[in-house]
């Protein structure tokens, strides 16, 4: 599973975003997600990946691709899961 796939899973599990609505270019604004939703996403990512996303980092995320890039910058890659 790629980091992107797992991000889509978190968006679906935690925030009810249908997977088919998401592409790497999709912005959180287009998904109608606000700053509180991004905090929830960050918590989901922490549970799923075991990496911490700070409030400021969460606030800076504009698109799904941004979130993937941030997580990859924290050393995450493709997993066997």
């Amino acid at each position, binding site marked *: 599973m790629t980091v992107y796939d797992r991000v889509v899973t978190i968006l679906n599990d935690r925030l009810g975003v249908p997977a088919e609505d998401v592409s790497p270019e999709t912005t959180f604004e287009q998904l109608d997600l606000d*700053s*509180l939703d991004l*905090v*929830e996403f960050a*918590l989901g990512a*922490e*549970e799923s990946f075991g990496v911490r996303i700070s*409030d400021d980092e969460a*606030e800076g995320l504009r698109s799904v691709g941004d979130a993937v890039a941030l997580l990859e910058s924290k050393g995450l890659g493709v997993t066997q899961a």
Partner: protein
Amino acid sequence: MLLENKRLLVTGVLTEASIAFSVARLAQEAGAEVVLSGFGRGLRITQGIAKRLPTEADVIELDVTKPDDLAAAAADIDSRWGALDGVVHAIGFAPAGALGGRFMQTSWEDVATTLQVSTYSFAALAAAMAPLLKQAGGGSIVGLDFDASVAWPGYDWMGVAKAGLESCCRYVARDLGPQNIRVNLVAAGPLRTMAAKAIDGFSRFEDEWAPRAPLGWNVHDAEPVGRVVCALLSDWTPAVTGEIVHVDGGAHAVGTGAATEG
């Protein structure tokens, strides 16, 4: 320790930047037992953040606008501890229409929501918890304020609600004093919390706060506020009630910044 064996209800923890998170963390470090509350879609976030405290805290579901929730929260605490030593009210909300420079156009519905959540809830929470505080032989209620003596950019009806909160604090102090319950507010300088980020124009007075404050001011550090809240929750302010303590680097005391002098 400052809060050894104190049993505290801390509302308003949403993220680690929350003032209430600093309060809960410092209180635990000072020996207190802490229960948090959260509600709505914030509840799960509060539950997640509760794990980041030194000791994971339980989270009670509590919408302060619902009398049933207040009664259920009191019953939960009663069954847990049988008494309560302190309450932190860190609750405020204003619909978008009540903030951000549309003051003269705001509808009564938006104003009513702002006042219900941000002002009335202080008295409602105090009333719900008073029997438990009395059971402990008295206690301390602390609310979070933002200086309401002047008008601020963007703060609008939340500023009106805070002015009401300041008055509300005095009346609750009057009525709960005979039960040895102290009631005070901490007026914090601007902090980069989720609540602050929701306010258009907030950055304008963030930028001018540090140069004006004699002690300076860091908008990213809620600990100075948390420390004073803990002090007010402790036994070291036994004759203080109906008070507003400014934790703002001293900005409230000066009319303009000293940076250009000398």
